[in-house]
């Protein structure tokens, strides 16, 4: 299904957002996140952004204090996923204005909503920032 999960984790290894596209139990999730965070956060800037873990390939990228980790199937295109992460960050940036960890913490449901606009059932369905943000803006207006 392409993308299997998306995680946002800060430098201390605390998960700030977790979105799974397949069912995992709490325990499986806890273990998986722990392992991945340990593996990826230990890596340096000079190392590549792809890590194989269990049957996933993790593509990650760091923005300021936040790591964006995307778990994908093995034959997914790594560079495209990196572009996807970048698009996600740009989108959040446009919405929040200079997005930072706190924005995501306190507006988690919005971050989820953006993700839902972009990804459906593990495949990317929307790549236009304007299209992604329109429903959120509508909702902001309504409330």
């Amino acid at each position, binding site marked *: 299904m*392409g993308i299997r999960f998306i995680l946002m984790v800060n430098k201390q290894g605390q998960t700030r957002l977790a979105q799974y596209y397949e069912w995992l139990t709490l*325990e499986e999730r806890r273990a998986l996140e722990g392992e991945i965070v340990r593996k990826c956060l230990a890596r340096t800037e*000079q190392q590549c952004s*792809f890590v194989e873990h269990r049957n996933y390939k993790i593509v990650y990228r760091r923005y300021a204090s936040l790591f964006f980790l995307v778990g994908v199937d093995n*034959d997914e295109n790594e*560079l*495209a996923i990196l572009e996807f992460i970048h698009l996600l960050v740009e989108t959040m940036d446009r919405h929040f204005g200079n997005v930072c960890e706190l924005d995501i913490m306190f507006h988690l449901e919005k971050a989820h909503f953006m993700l*839902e606009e972009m990804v459906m059932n593990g*495949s990317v*369905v929307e790549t236009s920032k304007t299209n992604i943000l329109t429903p959120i803006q509508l909702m902001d207006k309504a409330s």
Partner: protein
Amino acid sequence: MSGPSLIDSLFQRTLEDLIKGLRQQLIGEQAFISKALEEIRKEIKSTDLSTKSTALLKLSYLSSLHFHDMAFASFHALEVLSSPRFSHKKIAYHAISLSFHDSTPVLLLITNHLRKDLTSTNEFEVSLSLQCLSRIANVDLARDLTPEIFTLLSSNKLYVRKRAVAVVLRVFEKYPDSVRVCFKRLVENLENYDPQILSAVVGVFCELACKDPRSYLPLAPEFYKILVDSKNNWVLIKVLKILAKLAPLEPRLAKRVVEPVCDHMRRTGAKSLLFECVRTVVTSLSEYDSAVRLAVGKVREFLVDEDPNLKYLGLQALSIVAPKHLWAVSENKEVVIKSLSDADPNIKIESLHLVMAMVSEHNVAEISRVLVNYALKADPEFCNEILNSILSTCSRNLYEIIVDFDWYVSLLGEMSRIPHCQKGEEIENQLIDIGLRVKQVRPELVRVARDLLIDPALLGNPFLHRVLSAAAWASGEYVEFSRNPLELMEALLQPRTSLLPPSIRAIYIQSAFKVLVFCLHTYLMQRESTTSSACPDNLPSGVSASVSYESFDGLSVENGGDAAVTHSLTSTSASMTDESIVNLLNLVEIALGPLLGSHDVEVQGRARNVLGFVDMTKLDLLNPSAQEDKGLERKGVEAYKTIELMHDAFSEELGPVSLTAQGKVPLPDGLMLKENLGDLEMICGDIELPSSNSFSFGSPYEEKVGVSFSNLQIKEDFEQSNESTSLLAEHRKRHGLYYLPSGKSEIISNDYPPANDPTSQGNVNDNSDDLAKLTEESLFPKKKPNHAKPRPVVVKLDEVDEKPIAMKKPEAKDDSLSGAVRDILLGSEDVIPTSSRSNLSGKPSSKRRGKEKQDTDPHVESKENLVDDGNPSSRRRKHHSHGKERRHKSPRKKNAEEREDNGQKEKEKSSHRHGRHKSRRRADELLNVSPQTPVIPDFLL
């Protein structure tokens, strides 16, 4: 609204409060959360929906980020879901997608909620429920909601339609029959020009095609068109993935696709697309040389790039292309080897794989040299990666690429000395394996083993113990090649061996025993080179049979008799003097004496064996009172004979045995292997006391020598087999005497084939003819002794590399999914060639597509189902799904042969649902159809 809930809602903490509180808490995170959970549990029971939904929101937050179970709230989530307010719905849907799964009990209750929202006029509500469905759909939901999905697939709201497309994947997976309903509309969406829709639908097809590419071949023209027309990189990447799966199945498609792919490769600025093109070429279009050259050129750019990501991917692409185009790797050799010292372990490992891909007979020595040097400098993890790949590459196909085994054996020795080496077990296996298989290498093997054994420093490294055990075994087994057995003896008995684990120490002692016997034998040979030695044929069979138990560790006598003779003739350079023998015996006594009190049975037992032997020989042979000739004539004869026997026993050559050898032993008549041995317990209990005598070590040399040896042998064989055949060994231990063959060891071993040792019956020294016969008959798979190469013969067994193949066949679900897809596609087959043709000629076909037109042709097509078990077990299905979705007729010259069968089938015009059910019936009685190549013919010709 009741009082308490009003208060609840007034003073309820919002999610924001919760998050802030969590950041500022002083009572500890866990305590704070459990307090919050308590509140939530109360609030969620409120009748006020906004209180309830806020509670649910907080709960989802805690569940998602702090792993707290929210299963208890599943019913509450459903209640919130029924709220008319969008914001409540949103919270509920989020909670449901987060926490529901196939075994959630209230899943049954959600169907109507979903249906209601799926048919809502608010596109955002529809979207929410689709999103949720894509996460929680199970068989029932997929089945019940298929009609709604079907409608949404052609919704005029793009926002909804693309989501419906994306959710279809899950629905198909869970309920394959929905394919018959929805597939056509899905395919129609392929021709949509809206990039959003296209992105979604291509994503779906990419997933579907990964599972079973063959079913989607008929759609190749559509994919081709997207490849040529689309400007969206994401879509192009997905289409390339699909085509990469389809191209190997249809050469004409590959031919067609290769140019556009190369075009993209040349033109695109996006690295992701470029890389996908490269990957497509190297995986699926590797026969097209120019394309591969272009791709390898791009890979080179990746490799020299600063960006570690590109470098890594470049190396990966190279390793894909390596098996077919090794030149691509060789061209980039420098970069690859340089990457071995990259900062990134992933890159290092990729480059290591590539280096190993370059290994051949001719360069294995140099490459291994380079790699071992890298391993010396590398960090422990990578060092072992390197060693592992050297070991596995070199041992592939029974050391296929090794010509010079002397070199390889010394390399093994060298590798085990690398400080971080943790591959002791593998090295051990290979040392022993090579020793058994390659005769010519044995002298070198003994030399390497000696170097390892003699170094006291190595004993301190637990990772090396396994290697040392192999070294000890080899030096004992092939002691006749040793230049200086006395030195070997000292090495085997050095004090630091106390650092070894008992099991390996036992091997050391056993090897020391072998060396000792060899030394004594050489000594005797020297002493009476004039006297003719006792004829080995006269061996009492008691001892010779006990030899057979020596081979319990899975080895077997190979070509018995003659080996013994040749070995005894190869004399060592070091000559034995009286003094050296006395020293030797003393050394053994001093070194092994303390081990008699060892707590480990193996060590203790073997030490006793050796010491018993030493005592005996010392008494008889070197007793100062007994003069040379006299002593020999009187008591010494016994010792002499024993040494001779032992020597012959040890110089039996052990060969490799196939894993499946035991299966080839015919079951003797009347042997009930599965008989319940319960009543044996009683017998054993009776016999235990008396028979334990025969097992004791008493003082062996007071008894007659032959008997004491038999006892020792019993003990020994018990030790050797106790791992795998503990039960049998237990029995043997108790009834030791009954196992000792008195005269006809052959017969006895037939009655009692020892569980693990198919060859024991062949070990009788004086019966090498029988042995030959036996091996031919059953025991041995044929050897392949004659290699035409100049390299030494590597003994091979036929089944050595055979592994039982228990591949799981494709699941039934996939089966039915792709079966359904094929049914549909074959139905639409008559349409597709037309559309593709019109596409190619530049006419958009979508206008015509929309029209529904009476199709005059029978819709029913025969179809071969290739999926079952991967076999072309052709099976036909009736195909009806076009009942409603009729399309215009098209010129179909190509499908003529398939049409021939049409007469047998009836045309069906039924509703979808009707068609769906009916089509499950398979017209099995109708037999073969010609193989289904002409699926995309018009387009490609």
